[in-house]
């Protein structure tokens, strides 16, 4: 972070101009998107031999669950009326019982993908199957096997918690008394027993979300779709939710979710995919993805400031350094390395030799944030525009001038 205000202001001006350049990942996303597409060959969608082959081929699917695929998506594209391309050819497969996290900046196409898979949107290209059923040609069959909780909480505010769940049972064709029993079961499982008789409209945001999730499970779906299920929940509720999702995964339910909480995705998801601008840029286990960006990272700040260019040139031949990138706050640079601790002395030596004075150095293990940052070139944000506005206001308040935008 900043050493003192003066130096930080100076740094910012210089680094801001060079900020978008990332080293070590030539062509950044594209070749990886191709690689992801290769894993799921785009042949005729209905040939069983092809499906069988892919089950054997997709190396990112865990071996134990290779026997059944819950979700198969090939070259999926969506162009909205008006010409906006939301998805530009996405391919991936999710095995039964997997918890699959879909990550990406806002507007990258996560929700569009979910809405196509739950039959709320029609795709304009490619193929999508859920539970083996085509989302366009057999939407009714798809609806029989899925549960869905969208971004907005789909509960009826005028019905009580238990009535909401029973209603879901009626709608899913459960018998009358079975619906009420299932409602009671789920109230118990989701610790909603105390508010069973309270109208949903009077419940707190967290409880409503929990009720919404319980509702998605009334029909015991084999594939559960959750669009940002933890948004707006306090940490306790989030942890409880993840525990519940892991339990569902253990019982064989496939969970497909989008999230902005990368740390949680790291802990809870079997595999994650990162989407950027309608394209899948990478897919794999959190472990493998973190390995890919390097085992660790060093976050450096400099006495006189330094650009990504300058530092990258200085460290070009430093063993163990994979990449240099601008950091989360304009004045810091992030150096990705194989081994965080072992890299500190050579990095410092080389920088000093080039006359670049380091003000601070911080070492850390790579996180999913780093993976995300590498592939999308941005820090994950919940509200991109607002954050931009706030930081420029913050900058103005501190007498900084921002260059470029």
């Amino acid at each position, binding site marked *: 972070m900043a050493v003192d205000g003066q130096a930080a202001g100076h740094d910012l001006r210089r680094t801001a101009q060079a900020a978008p350049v990332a080293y070590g990942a030539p062509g950044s996303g594209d070749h990886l998107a191709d690689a992801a597409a290769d894993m799921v060959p785009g042949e005729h969608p209905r040939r069983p031999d092809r499906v069988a082959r892919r089950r054997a081929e997709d190396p990112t699917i865990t071996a134990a669950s290779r026997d059944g695929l819950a979700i198969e998506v090939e070259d999926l594209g969506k162009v909205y009326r008006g010409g906006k391309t939301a998805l530009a050819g996405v391919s991936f497969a999710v095995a039964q019982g997997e918890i699959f996290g879909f990550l990406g900046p806002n507007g990258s196409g996560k929700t569009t993908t979910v809405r196509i898979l*739950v*039959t*709320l*949107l*029609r795709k304009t290209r490619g193929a999508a199957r859920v539970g083996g059923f085509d989302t366009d040609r057999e939407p*009714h069959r798809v*609806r*029989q096997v*899925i549960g*869905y909780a*969208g*971004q*907005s*909480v*789909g*509960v*009826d*505010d*005028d*019905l009580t918690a238990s*009535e909401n769940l029973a*209603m*879901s049972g*009626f*709608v*899913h*064709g*459960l*018998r*009358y*008394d*079975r*619906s009420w029993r299932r409602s009671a079961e789920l109230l118990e499982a989701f610790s909603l027993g105390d508010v069973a008789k309270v*109208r949903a409209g009077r419940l707190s945001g967290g409880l409503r979300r929990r009720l919404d999730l319980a*509702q998605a499970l009334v029909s015991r779906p084999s594939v559960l779709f959750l669009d940002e299920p933890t948004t707006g929940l306090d940490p306790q509720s989030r942890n409880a939710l993840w525990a519940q999702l892991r339990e569902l995964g253990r019982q064989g339910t496939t969970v497909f979710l989008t999230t902005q909480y990368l740390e949680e995705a790291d802990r809870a998801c079997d595999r994650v995919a990162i989407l950027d601008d309608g394209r899948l840029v990478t897919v794999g286990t959190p472990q493998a993805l973190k390995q890919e960006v390097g085992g660790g990272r060093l976050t450096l700040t400099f006495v006189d400031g330094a650009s990504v260019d300058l530092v990258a040139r200085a460290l070009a031949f430093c063993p163990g350094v994979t990449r240099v990138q601008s950091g989360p706050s304009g004045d810091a640079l992030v150096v990705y390395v194989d081994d965080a601790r072992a890299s500190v002395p050579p990095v410092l030596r080389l920088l000093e030799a080039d006359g670049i004075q380091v003000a601070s150095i911080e070492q850390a293990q790579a996180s999913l944030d780093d993976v995300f940052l590498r592939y999308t070139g941005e820090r994950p944000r919940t509200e991109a525009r607002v954050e931009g506005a706030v930081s420029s206001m913050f900058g103005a308040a501190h007498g900084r001038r921002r260059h470029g935008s």
Partner: protein
Amino acid sequence: MGPDMRLPVPAALGARNVTRNLRTPMLVTASLLQPVILLVIFSQIFRGLADTPAFQRLGYTSYLAFFVPGMVVLSMLFTALQSGMATVTDIDTGMLDKLLTSPIERSSILLGRVIADAVTMLSQGAVMLVIAVLMGARPQTGWLGAISLLGYATALGVVWAGLANLLALRLRSSELTMVVGQFLTLSALFLTPAFFPKPLLPGWLQTVAMGNPAAYVIETGQRLMGIGNDWGQDLRTLIALGVAALILVPAAVAAFRARTT
């Protein structure tokens, strides 16, 4: 209904929508209150009309009895608007998405809405009629005529709910649905013989009324309440309602389908 029965989905959704109305009674009372107030005020203001020869020549004896059908219809048109608002709410809250991803027929969702609308409208209309009777109105055609009036008005209300849902699904905003819906509803009311017998209206208004299903229902109601039944008028009303339904219902269904693409 036995405990091991499967509840038909439209019935379940209908029950849900009625429950909503029961739990937010203001919704129903609000759309009832305005017509009741208008009924009380206008039946007093125009009371003297019943004594004029022009009015009497048509066979009417009480302005109150003449005026009731217009207000019964108005209360149902308001409820129809609320049906559209409820659809916007279901879109906004994600409730509609929930239903659309359930393995149910699309038509069940609309049918559930219609069932609830009809139940609400019938009870509202019944309340209006009871109030009118308490105020001294006596239907010329007796209970049967009063029930027919309720039937016609409810049918019109359901058709109008189709229009409100069409607006809701296309505009996707409760404010716009309310503004546009209220404009259409009040126009539909004022371009009818609700306040003045049809033969006494200016020619152009009579012509406009020929294209307004509410005008047929109100005129039929006025005959049932004040003069006596006229099968020709019944037939014309049924045709007008049928034509309106044939235009609005498919349009509403199409708007509904468009939500899923």
